[in-house]
């Protein structure tokens, strides 16, 4: 018992102060929201669009990136001869609508909170059922980590529950494989209304690098009504937390 107490003292209090305090430091090589440097692209270039593995980049009429497809691999950054695109430190990328995920240098329309009725229901207690529909386990791991003491999702009344019957909504990862589609729909149906759906990661939003595979459905967005979209591959836990807190009106 004494050992346990001594260990408790040695491990200290580690819950971050965010959102009241500043966000935790991110790695210097972190790939957050893309930054577009001004100035025209060389004529007929398209180098970035050509190397993008998920065809997330449009060059016409202006350079823009679909963050719902982007896997933040930085191949475009490496391919650009004139540094027009690079990935910066901004972790805030969660949105309410699919079309808000196009990044073109203007500020993203970050997720607004639920309406008054939604906040009354979920603002202080949001129980989520996680469904991995083909997820590779990275999004799942970074969602799981939010429950650990450093991030402590429980502070906000957010908790992951064992049954959709106990849930206020689903948090979906993965491109929705053909083999999971049925299970996903049944889980959604089993969740009592009113309910939310949160899509985490490029796969859940657009299929990610599995887009176009006949074995998967290009994400949850075409299958269920999605209330919050969190891009990334995987999104950093801070990006996920930022998205959830915005939805609940805590940020």
């Amino acid at each position, binding site marked *: 018992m004494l050992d346990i107490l001594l260990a408790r003292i040695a*491990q200290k209090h580690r819950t971050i102060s965010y959102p009241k305090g500043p966000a935790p430091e991110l790695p210097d090589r*972190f790939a957050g929201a893309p930054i577009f440097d001004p100035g025209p692209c060389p004529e007929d270039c398209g180098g970035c669009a050509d190397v993008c*593995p998920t065809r997330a980049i449009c060059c016409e009429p202006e350079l823009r990136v679909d963050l719902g497809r982007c896997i933040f691999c930085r*191949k475009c950054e490496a391919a650009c001869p004139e540094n027009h695109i690079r990935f910066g430190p901004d972790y805030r990328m969660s949105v309410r609508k699919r079309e808000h995920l196009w990044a073109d240098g203007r500020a993203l329309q970050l997720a607004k909170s639920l309406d008054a009725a939604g906040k009354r229901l979920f603002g202080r207690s949001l129980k989520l059922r996680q469904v991995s529909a083909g*997820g590779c*386990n990275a999004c799942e791991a970074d969602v799981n980590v939010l429950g650990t*003491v*450093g991030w402590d999702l429980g502070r906000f009344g957010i908790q992951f529950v064992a049954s959709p019957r106990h849930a206020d909504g689903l948090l979906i990862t993965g491109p929705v494989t053909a083999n999971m589609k049925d299970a996903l729909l049944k889980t959604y149906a089993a969740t009592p209304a009113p309910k939310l759906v949160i899509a985490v990661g490029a796969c859940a939003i657009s299929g990610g690098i599995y887009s176009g*595979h006949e074995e998967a459905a290009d994400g949850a967005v075409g299958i269920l009504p999605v209330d919050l979209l969190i891009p990334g591959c995987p999104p950093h836990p801070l990006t996920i937390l930022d998205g959830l807190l915005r939805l609940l009106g805590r940020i």
Partner: protein
Amino acid sequence: MTDISSKLFSMSNGRAADISDLNGMDMPRFRETVIDGIGRGLRLAAMFAHETDAGALRLWAILAHDTQSELLPLYTDCTGESYPSLTPQCPQAHGFEREIFEQWGLRPMGHPWLKPIRFQPPYRKDALSAPSATIGITDFFQVDGEEVHEVAVGPVHAGIIEPGHFRFQCHGETVLHLEISLGYQHRGVERRLMNGPDSRSIHYMETLAGDTTVGHAVSYCQITEALSETRAPRRSLAIRGIGLELERIANHIGDLGALSGDVGFLPTMSYCGRIRGDALNMTALLCGNRFGRGLVCPGGVSVDLDAARQAELLRRLEAVESDAASAVNLLWKTSSVMARFEGTGPLTPQVCNEIGLVGPAARACGVRRDIRQDFPSGIYEYVRIPISTHDSGDVLARAYVRWLEIQRAIAFIREQTTNLPDGPVRKPLAGLAANRLAVSLTEGWRGEICHVAVTDDQGRFRHYKICDPSFHNWFGLALALRGQQISDFPLCNKSFNLSYCGHDL
């Protein structure tokens, strides 16, 4: 008694061979060679099939000779629709044969458990003998008896975890039999790798099993380097090793925390949950991504470590080392934890060898099996990490082996970071050679990762076979549950912690 390998072409890990030099044989000799080899203690690292230009189905087997560090590739060309199954004499082949049947319709006659393994659409549209693919609809082994009941769990199961189906046959609380039915995570990766490599190839590798990004990426890069006869620079091999061992540390710490949670011991659960994040952040220090996406690339690594970054890595490593020791050592001193861990979910070394178990699960049975020792490649050709084993084969052993590996990985990272070789971190790759077979084995944190590539006349992948360690080990979990309490299932499951998507691909 002649050693089997003296008659056959053998190759080393991380090399490519001209297919015309390899061991093509007729089906009876193919079967005899595999059965004989496994009888003498070789292991089946991979078995797969692909179509040849002549319209036959070429069946490959890669046998691994651990003690001689040799790989024996064999093939036979099948023109019929069936062949006599290897599984009755070689249980290790069971999953591979089911997979080949599902993909190509080649029926292994006499296979004791021929049923869908991934519920995937077949590669050959006209594969008449291929089973229909409606997931979850299959014959589950059932035990008859008035007091026997059946418990079904999944695909969606409690927790933030990938889907799989578990069907228990129970008598009271005791599990008589567990059957595990997967395929829910099947994304069709191997199909897309055919005719590659292309712009998505490395990304498929990095997300095959999203928590084993570095393991699979290193395996893939070793394949492309073997096929193009490129040697990645020494400095990059050291950095790859650091990435692999950081991945091992992060996952093992996470597992020890989860095991604590499963027995209700919250101190270690809480601390390890956090410390795992610290380990992931060390990987992010290297490449910006917590899972190592973008770290490894064909020809080397894509990032370098200057003196400041090396110093920061060492500083964080020391913090993780002391925090982890403080958290994990509580486990061995707490009798309530040990009472749950000891004797739960045991496997014997005999079963381990019979089914071809790999990784910490095998080492926890006292079996000294580790690719870093048996088939060293990359940095492991220059540096040896002692093998971590424990004898009891139970949850305690699987936990304790992880703890030993964490400590040894920390020592390795410290040594490599302080002594990084000079030079570049990347070399450009030449084109991939035509008509080759390349095999690459890596000791991922779950165990042996095996990648095999067969190139066509143009140097493109005619076939790319991936065998995640989970493919071998899921059956180990099923066997470990026999005679156990059903309430110990989460604990046993976590003690293996296998990948669903690594199995399903």
